[in-house]
Every structure is written in structure tokens, then in C-alpha cells.
């Protein structure tokens, strides 16, 4: 399994990519494969405070409902509204067009505690 090396990964399968002062957040291709076809996504609004390790939203597939867990603490500055209208984008392009949120983190160094691409690949091997 190969994952982009320009970002960090949470055990709960969210990716977090530092872009200057902010962090872009999405779900990994591995998570989306496991979930199957996505039918519903519930994301909070801009301005909502999020906390590392705490759910900020829900994702529902034909198989299951899962929680989306924030990889960092901070405040949401952007939500991918365009993707909400076309959920196929999430599975088709999880690394770019299928991003979920942008967060202004309270402490950018929280990303250091997350996994890199290699460690995440190993984590997925174990779960697969």
C-alpha cells in the first residue's frame, strides 16, 4: 500500500496536510475502500471548534456508519461544500478534490504525533 508522503495520518484513517498555517483534513483511500459506497456525510460548519481525537462528523456507507475524528485541535475555517453535493468525489479523489475540512490548528506541532505514510501503510496492513 502506497500513500502520499506530503501529509500525516491518524490511526482512525484521517489524513492531515499542513498548508502554511492551516491543516487540510480528509479520509484515506484505505478507509473509503473499507466503507464501500458512501451515501451520507455530516460535517460541521465553518467556525466550529474541533479537538484532536474527538469526533467532528459522521460518514455513512451502504455498510456502516463511522465517526470522523479530528487529527488536530483548532477551528474549522473551510468545509468542502462542493464535494458534499457529489459524494463520488470522496472515493474518486480522496487525496485532492475529496478533502473534508480546513482547520486553523491551535498547535501545528500536534501533527508530529501522527503517523507518516510508511507507518500508516503498516497500520493498514495489520487491519486488512
Amino acid at each position: 500500500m502506497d500513500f502520499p508522503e506530503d501529509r500525516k495520518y491518524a490511526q482512525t484513517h484521517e489524513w492531515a496536510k499542513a498548508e502554511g498555517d492551516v491543516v487540510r483534513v480528509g479520509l484515506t483511500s484505505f478507509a473509503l475502500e473499507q466503507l464501500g459506497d458512501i451515501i451520507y456525510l455530516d460535517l460541521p460548519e465553518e467556525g466550529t471548534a474541533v479537538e484532536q481525537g474527538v469526533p467532528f462528523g459522521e460518514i455513512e456507507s451502504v455498510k456502516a456508519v463511522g465517526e470522523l475524528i479530528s487529527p488536530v485541535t483548532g477551528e474549522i475555517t473551510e468545509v468542502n461544500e462542493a464535494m458534499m453535493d457529489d459524494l463520488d468525489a470522496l472515493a474518486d479523489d480522496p487525496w485532492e478534490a475529496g478533502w473534508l475540512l480546513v482547520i486553523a490548528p491551535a498547535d501545528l506541532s500536534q501533527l508530529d504525533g501522527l503517523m507518516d505514510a510508511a507507518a500508516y501503510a503498516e497500520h493498514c496492513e495489520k487491519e486488512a
Partner: protein
Amino acid sequence: MAQPTLFDKSQPGKRCTQMPSAAMAAEEFLPADQLRAEAPRLPELSEPEIARHYARLAGQNFNVDANFYPLGSCTMKYNPKVHEEIAGAAGFSRLHPSAPDECAQGALRLMRELETWLAQILGMDAVSLQPPAGAAGEFTSLRVFRAWHDSRGDTKRTRVIVPDTAHGTNPASVARCGWDVTVLKSGEDGRVAPEALADALGDDVAALMLTNPSTLGLFETRVLEVNAMVHEAGGLVYCDGANMNALLGHARPGDMGFDAVHVNLHKTFSTPHGGGGPGAGPIGVVAKLEPFLPSPRIVERGGALAWDWDRPESIGKVQAWFGNFLVAVRAWAYIQANGGEGLRQVARDAVLAANYIRASLQETWDLPYPGVCMHECVLSAKTLKNATGIRAADVAKRLLDYGIHPPTMYFPLIVEEALMIEPTETESKAAMDYFIEMMQEIAQDAAGRPDLLHEAPHETPVRRVDEVAAARKPILRWREE
């Protein structure tokens, strides 16, 4: 094949019943603002046309009277027809729910007896028949727990621990009760690990919800230790009794240390279900929780039975009237017909049937949690999927072509590509052998003829439906085009 609706078949002027013409026109005796401007748009058909319409649709229904229905965790056992006759007796079916107690002594006695029998079967001190479904039983039990904690001034408890194998209704009931869920990861063997539980417990924990046997079809072998730990931490323990079919007459939640349990009359006690009910989810509780049970309660007064509404500590009513009474009648009849030894045999046969299927299929399919199971076995199509691309959903759809209802899929969530199979005690060996044979054939076809499975079902009135489109853009009612 698209089925025409009654509206499609409608022809102006057709009627079921020809009413005699009225002596007066409606305009002559109704105020103008009460008159419709135009006639209601109802379909117009003759009675035989309507009867045939519904009879044809009913014939396409997939049901336990016609087909093997191994839907895991749902206990789709055959429901004896004599129950319908008993429940249809005029004394039960035409009794008005607000009839005075003295006119309803027979019904009250039946409910009282059912409460007593369920209390014996569950090992509990008191039973309420009021919750109308399993999830309602969960919710009612949690409200009773909450009332008990509150009565002791212990209001800091806001968390409920729920294992990751639990029915989805468990966390939903917790949320409805205004509490927070802490998910407990199962141990390597699929059971609750006391070590993990110890970390999750605290003085803010109101309860643990535990399903025994679990949704993996496994008996929680450390249940005594687990329940003692929760009590030690000041919490209560709730038993999700949805899988009680495995335990009837052999083990009792009360003896395992549970404080409350619900049981599904529509599963374990053989009342019809599917299609939305009605069901019944009576709860049993230990003596200290009895004052908090839903009101009213049946009591004996001056040699007769009566409803007692004067219950100051009760959580109140959770259902209109007294629960789904006619479901209780069927369960009463089932217990009466089987007796104690009969119920014990139900559990033996249910467990034997599930193990027969497990043992027959575990070479071909993955069995993630090996060993003897209880009333159901959870297989996985993971190896098959990796090798052939055929998923649990494809297997389920193909089974429909063989006249078999699919097992529960993709649940419990901790098993990938799960197929959860519960044959129940009412299936013959021949019916199970047919299922086993078809499962073997599907495994072979997955390698040899995968398109057959991808495109299944082929033989049903409606072919594979687009679940994604149905969920994203549901059409919830008929509209005139």
C-alpha cells in the same frame, strides 16, 4: 419488473361498493367552508381488481412461511399458526384497552402470568410488558437506570460503556437517554476483555450494555467477572437479550449478575415480525429497580387484578395503553405450548443448528472467531473477496436466486465482509443442507463465473437495486407524474 400502482390501473367511475344516492345533496346540509372544491384523487377500481392487486404483490413477498430465512440476530423462526387463532379470539382481539379492570380480568391474568413466566426465564424479580420493541426495551431500561441513579442523588454518571460488537440500537438508546457512549474494543477472542473494561470504568459510568450471547454468536464466558467489576464501580449492567433464544432454560441473565434485560417476544417467543412489527420488548429488572418500571403495573386488589397508576417513582408510560397486547398473547401461547422442557429443547436445537452450519461451511468460508458458537455463526467472505472480488453483498444477492433469504451482512462491524447466519431451531436438516450446498456452489461460482454473482439476483421480481442512489436520493412516496 415494474408493478403498476392502483393509480395506474384506475378507471373513472369504477367502485367497490355502489352507494345508494343520497336524499339530500351535501351542499344542502353542510356549511360551504366544509365542502371540498374538488373530489379527492383516489384510485377508482372494482373490488376484485384491488384484491388481485394485493394478492399478487403479497405473492412476491419473501417470508418465513415460504422460505428459509437465516437472518442473523433476528431469530426468524417459524411462527405457529395456532397463535393467530388464539390472538384472534374475540375476548382478546375485541377487548377495548380502556375497559374497566373488572371487565378485563382474563387479559390482566394473561399479562400477569406472562410477566411471571418471563421473570422466571430471565431470572429477574419484576417484568414490564410495556416496551413495544427491543430498542424500546433498551431505552426503557436505561431510563430506569437513570431514575435509580437520580434517586440516590448520583447525578454525575453520564457515560455508558458499549462493546464494539453491540447492536446499533445500543448506542442509539444511550444517546436518546441523554448520555454519552464509550465504545469498548473486544478482546482477541471477540469477547469483552475485563482488562479493557477496567480502563473504561469510572465514577461517571452509569452502565454497561452487554449482549449475551454476543452478536458474534459467542457466550461471554467472563460475564460474572465483568458484571462484578461494573457493580464495584457503582454502575449497573444491562443485558441486551435479543439473543435469548440460545439460553432459554439453560442460563439466566439474572444469575449472571445483570440488573436489567430485555427480551424480544417477536424473536425468542415466536411472534411474527419483519415488515416493521408490531413487536414487543418486555424488560425484566432486579427488585431494587422495580419501583421505577413504567406505569401502570398489574397488582392484586381484593382477589382481583387491577392496574396500579399510583407509582410515584415510575419513569411513566413508554407506550400507548399497556404495550402490544396481542403480541403478548402469542408469546403466552408459545410458552404454554412448549413448557419448561420444550423451551430448553428450543435453545438446544437452535444452538445445534447454528453449529451444524458453522461446521459445514468453515472450510470454504472464513470463520474469524473459531470454535463452538451459540445460536448463530458469523462467517466472513474476506478471503473470497481478496481472491475473486466477490463481496458479502454479492453472496447475499445470489442466495435470493436459490429462494433463501440472505444472512445479515456487514455486521457485527468488527468482522470484515461478515455473513451472520442464524438458522433457528425450526429449520429441518434438509433445509439447512440445501443452504449449505448453495453456499458451496456460490463459493465455486465466485471463482468460475463471477459475473453471475455480480449481477445477481436473476430470478427475483426486482433485480439488483441501486442502494446508493436509493439512499442518496430517496423517493419516499408516490407522486402523480
